[in-house]
């Protein structure tokens, strides 16, 4: 049995079915990439997994437990963390504070109201550690809204990592980045993968980036699951080739 499983997961907005009966399963500590053309329902699928959207039909199981109706908050606490495609940080807080809030949540410090947050030295130290990992430690005191786009993406990833969840849902972590910035992010993802204790789902447009990272790739097309297999299988799959890849890898 997989760590996360969905059965016939469906969501429709009015007449448009954005995700159409997707059944998939991902094993623990597995690295799975999700590809598909624009509008294939990749991000919507993530929104269903992380709880931003509630499906119209179907089920989501996490460690065998039905989490279909759970709030995003509770899913995060259970161990499903996600990053957002559109940068989603706390704009007028410092970079350090952004990550510190994630660490604080992970440490379960939620309702203490009479001690200064500075008393929790280990929280701050941990936050700095994550910033070092994504190479942002020199921007600690900068307000998040003043970061360059690529830096915001890094911050986003640092916040996700800081939650220390078992599952990481990465929604196009390199979207909108300049080419020079991409390798640094991939390096971070590679590092996480190498620790081997996280289950990673990654949405990505750039096929070549994910071929060697992924244990498996699943292809979404018009909301449906088109194919799911090892990178080699996907490259050879003719339906995928004609629907999406258009002979790019050929």
């Amino acid at each position, binding site marked *: 049995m997989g760590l996360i499983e969905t059965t016939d997961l469906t969501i429709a907005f009015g007449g448009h079915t954005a995700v159409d009966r997707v059944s998939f399963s991902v094993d623990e500590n597995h690295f799975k990439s999700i590809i598909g053309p624009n509008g294939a329902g990749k991000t919507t699928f993530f929104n269903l997994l992380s709880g931003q959207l509630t499906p119209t039909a179907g089920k989501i199981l996490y460690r065998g437990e039905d989490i279909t109706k759970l709030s995003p*908050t509770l899913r*995060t606490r259970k161990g499903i963390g996600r990053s957002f495609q559109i940068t989603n940080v706390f704009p007028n807080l410092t970079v350090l504070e952004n990550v510190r*809030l994630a660490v604080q949540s992970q440490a379960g410090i939620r309702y203490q109201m*009479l001690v*200064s947050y500075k008393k929790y030295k280990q929280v701050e130290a941990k936050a700095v550690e994550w910033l070092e990992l994504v190479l942002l430690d020199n921007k600690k005191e900068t307000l998040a809204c003043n970061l360059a786009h690529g830096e915001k993406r890094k911050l986003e990833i640092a916040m996700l990592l800081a939650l220390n969840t078992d599952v990481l849902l990465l929604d196009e972590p390199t979207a909108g980045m300049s080419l020079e910035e991409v390798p640094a992010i991939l390096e971070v993802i590679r590092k996480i993968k190498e620790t081997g204790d996280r289950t990673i789902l990654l949405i990505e447009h750039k096929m070549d980036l994910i071929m060697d990272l992924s244990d498996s790739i699943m292809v979404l097309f018009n909301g449906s699951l088109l194919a799911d297999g090892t990178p080699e299988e996907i490259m050879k799959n003719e339906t995928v080739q004609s629907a999406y890849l258009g002979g790019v890898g050929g």
Partner: protein
Amino acid sequence: MIKEKKNLFYGLIAVMLLVLPFVYDSRSMIILLTQVFIFAMFAMSYDLLLGYTGIVSFGHAMFFGIGAYTIGIFMKQFEPTVPYFLLAVLVTVVLTAILSYIVGLLTLRLKSHFYAMLTLAFAGLFLVLAEKWRSLTYGNDGFTFRTPEVFRDRFDFYLICLVAMILVFVLLTRFTNSPLGRVLQAIRENEPRAESLGYSVIQYKIIASVVSGVIAGLAGILYSMSLRFVNTSVFTMDITLDALLMTIIGGVGTLVGAIVGAGIIEFAHHWLTQLAKVHWIFERWIILFGIVYILAVMFFPKGIVGTLQNMKKRKKHTVENKDDKNISG
């Protein structure tokens, strides 16, 4: 280092205000400053919602009014003694806590402007209640009452209000700098993100709402005690607007700003009313006030304290950038 300097500065001002009545015994000045302290407390409680949690409430006057009426009714219906005073404080705390909890529960699930409208309606409900429950509130005219012996001296009362304001300031500074307070600011910045970090937003909003409501209630108690009179005006929109403008002019999201804003507005009220003797236009001081508000919002959207802080930060930032360049160069 900077923080120590800041604390020293605040301490100095507090000491100056404490000794003021002993060196300068102008009765009207003391009364005016007492009002400033009371409204500063009220504005700080409002800022906790508006500036720290990002909740816009148009019904904050209801908590203020509950405090004001509770103390009035206790002093009038029972005896103006300290035990009854304490009982009234307790009742106010309980009532405002319950009410702010319910309002929080009912309305915080609504998006910003719907919430604002609902708080407005709630406050309106209390205004009507105060008008109609004549046996207890004496309707629109309100009623005068006597306060316990210890609160009668203007100078003592000044000190009590000053100490209360300092306590509220220290408490809220602590509160907003606690792990919970930091989450409130995160909610203000980006609510869905705070949620996906694993914080359950609604509970935080309720906590902020209750703390803010109780403090507003206590400010209401001191307000009607300073006048020894209470009428329905404490439930009106004007009171909420005062808090809103004090916070905006002083600086949203800074507790000091709320105090500064309260000072400016109370003093401006006072002086402009006095100027009416000089020229009739000042009798319509509220028009002048309106212009000042518009200018303030247009040119100092971050308020006085916020703008000052920004200037300081920018200075620091340019210095840092220079350092960066020096290193890389």
